[in-house]
């Protein structure tokens, strides 16, 4: 029920966003779940590298969420709670973490989990040679001790306040059987409710129930995640009954599917968030006035309607909306072309004097549409903007790595952990700071947060960071986008499927009515 609470609390905070629509006549009263059956899910994205440590893509995490369990996880309020560890303890100085493992947890190969597996998994993730995307979670980890089979003690050489919450992210905290590293990329093995059966690139991933799962076996015998990236095609598959459920309902069809009594829909908020990026190394954008003018040119509400058919909610803060660090005092600047023109003139750019190139990636078709809409507004403000459409590979190399761009747009899955979010994206040396942002005020704040153990004080620091990003218009934060699932009415337990992070789907409690 935790997840349902999560959904309803989100709904309260943001105003009715999580909606369940069931067939009229089908009561919401809990029926007794039935075991068995194969669920075929039309997955919106393709899975890539299956090694949970190495993979950075949300699509792979979404599927592997069912194969792996983490040492700790989060509840609806994004507080860290036990999972494979029965309990955990942080010393007062923040330098020692003690985990008591749950006894009798089985891996898919039949072995029982011990502290040696935890040590192995942590060290594998920490080792730069592994190429783990989350290796910096283990910054400051000096030693991992295993006094007995069910106790793990992590000793730090310095405070790393976000350590526990970052372990709750699947990638860093998953526990793999000792020595399984080499096989994880092709045949992942973990302690989750489903065993990995097979994978065919671009076609499907097949999972089978793991009967010895520590939290009780799942209902479904099999889950087949069929990869169908075309939204229309996914929808057709649902209509013809070939698929039991699909995620990511095409935004323009949402109303139609919701009204269709043949299906049930689940929507939640948020799935991810989008922002427009300004390269701070590009001469005009060094001037905060110009950056603010860019912000004023964009009508976020209209853009949301145009690019996502309104399936989301505008925001000026990228913090997870239910998290303590979300700064609700911020509001998007409304569109004001006149003021933008004035600001540009003040900065020395008369009509037609500012020329910019917008690099958008075809990986997110709605980014291309958003760019096309923005071009018209920029024109109205006397800014000459052209679009360059890049494949994902080109976007990564040009914008992300080489930082060779003027304006771009990107989305991130909700990085609910504020250190990960703010340090990576806005610290001058942050791993995700591809906009050349260098603001000493932000650097000081996020560094201070890393060694601030008191949660309330930390949250407050992050609110100041958001204020600063907004005041200086370092980036133009646009919106949170909705997540959605449509399913046949035979699928039950959908209220438990969405992980608190808004991206992962968990099939443990999902069942099929015969």
């Amino acid at each position: 029920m935790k997840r349902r609470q999560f959904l309803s609390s989100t709904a309260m905070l943001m105003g009715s966003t999580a909606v369940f629509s069931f067939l009229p006549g089908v009561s919401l009263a809990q029926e007794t779940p039935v075991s068995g059956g194969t669920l075929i899910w039309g997955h919106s994205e393709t899975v890539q590298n299956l090694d949970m440590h190495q993979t950075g893509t949300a699509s792979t995490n979404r599927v592997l969420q069912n194969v792996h369990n983490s040492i700790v996880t989060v509840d609806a309020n994004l507080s860290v709670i036990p999972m494979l560890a029965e309990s955990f303890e942080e010393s007062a100085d923040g330098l020692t973490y003690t985990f008591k493992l749950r006894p009798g947890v089985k891996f898919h190969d039949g072995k029982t989990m011990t502290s040696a597996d935890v040590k192995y998994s942590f060290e594998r993730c920490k080792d730069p040679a592994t190429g783990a995307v989350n290796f910096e979670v283990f910054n400051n980890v000096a030693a991992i001790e295993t006094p007995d089979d069910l106790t793990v003690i992590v000793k730090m050489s310095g405070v790393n306040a976000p350590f526990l919450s970052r372990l709750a992210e699947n990638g860093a905290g998953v526990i793999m059987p000792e020595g399984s590293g080499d096989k994880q990329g092709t045949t992942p093995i973990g302690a989750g409710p489903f065993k990995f059966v097979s994978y065919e690139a671009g076609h499907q991933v097949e999972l089978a129930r793991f009967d010895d799962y520590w939290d009780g076996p799942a209902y479904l015998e099999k889950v087949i995640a069929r990869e169908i990236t075309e939204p229309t095609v996914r929808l057709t598959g649902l209509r013809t009954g070939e698929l039991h459920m699909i995620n990511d309902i095409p935004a323009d069809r949402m109303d139609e599917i919701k009204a269709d009594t043949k299906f049930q829909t689940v929507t939640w908020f948020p799935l991810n968030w989008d922002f427009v990026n300004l390269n701070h190394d590009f001469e005009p954008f060094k001037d905060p006035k110009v950056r603010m003018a860019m912000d004023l040119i964009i009508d976020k509400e209209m853009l949301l309607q145009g690019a996502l058919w309104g399936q989301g909610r505008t925001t000026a803060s990228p913090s997870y909306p239910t998290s303590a660090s979300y700064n609700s005092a911020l509001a998007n600047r409304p569109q004001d072309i006149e003021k933008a023109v004035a600001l540009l003139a003040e900065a020395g750019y008369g009509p037609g004097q500012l020329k910019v190139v917008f690099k958008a990636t075809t990986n997110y078709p709605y980014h291309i549409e958003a760019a096309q809409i923005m071009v018209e507004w920029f024109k109205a403000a006397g800014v000459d903007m052209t679009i360059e459409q890049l494949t994902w590979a080109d976007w990564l190399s040009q914008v992300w790595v080489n930082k060779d761009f003027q304006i771009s747009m990107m989305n991130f899955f909700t990085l609910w952990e504020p250190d990960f979010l703010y340090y990576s994206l806005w610290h001058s040396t942050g791993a995700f700071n591809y906009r050349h942002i260098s603001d000493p005020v932000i650097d000081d704040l996020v560094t201070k947060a890393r060694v601030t153990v008191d949660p309330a004080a930390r949250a407050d620091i992050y609110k100041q960071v958001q204020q600063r990003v907004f005041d200086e218009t370092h980036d133009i934060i646009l919106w949170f986008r909705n997540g959605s699932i449509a399913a046949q009415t035979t699928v039950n337990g959908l209220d438990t499927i969405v992980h608190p992070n808004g991206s992962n789907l968990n099939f443990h409690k999902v069942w099929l009515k015969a």
Partner: protein
Amino acid sequence: MSYLLNRLLSIVLTLFLISAITFGVTNILPGDVAMMIMGTQSNPEALEGLRHSLGLNDPLIVQYGRWIAGMFTGDWGQSLIFKAPILDLLGQKIKASALIVVMSMAIALAVAVPLGVWSAVHRDKWQDSVSSSAALLGVSLPDFFWGIMLILLFARTLGWLPSSGYADPGVDFGLAVEHAFLPSLALGLGLMAHLTRMTRSTMVGILGQEFIRVARAKGLAERTVIWRYGLANAIGPVMTIAGLQVGYLFGSIIVIETLFNYTGMGWLTYQALLNRDVPLIQATVFVIAAVVMLTNLLVDLLYLLVDPRIRLG
């Protein structure tokens, strides 16, 4: 014998040229394999280390040698995006594409040959105009346009066939054919139109020849003249043209498989190109070119068997 030996030598030489062109072209690709592997985690030092361990700093000729040697020993390398052995990927995807290439060819020939003959027999009459106009329209519509029309008609309006996806023929052949049918038809319609035109013009040429007139003069039934004497002589040229179209089909599957979300070789090649997965681009491009070349050779050899007039000296 010496003919066969010559052919064999020429195959080896051509395969070598294909591999060299593929390798050469893909190595001028901008973008960096190491960067694609590291993605959003890239930083200059790590990139340099990875480049070194992948052997990307070696001279091109050394890399080329390694690639060729790998192909012989069954080590085609790893796909960067799928993190899977390329040979495994190719095995899965060739099966899928073979199914639609064969089906589309069968659909096209089954209609084109009778229609072309019929058209030639009724040359310059209304039957000819109708079939020739239809064929002209057929070759003028892009195959992805056919694909869209077929999705609209069969999948959306009638709901008879799945609009997309792929099913493994090794697991459930019937289901696999069902999924392969619309993409095959989309590919087959354009091909059908082309082959109809070719069959017609070949038959027109043959029907005007002396031996046909002789056969008619001998009082043979028209049906026998056309099918026994006419078509028997037309089948060789028509087959050659059909064989040459295999190359066209392998170009078209890139678009059609993407449209139908049918994950075969075309889809794999497109993914590789989009993601700059250089090892995978090299492998898919090489395999497609090799398959096209070998098919043409096979057609040449079949032609020798079918056409009685060509004997090797």
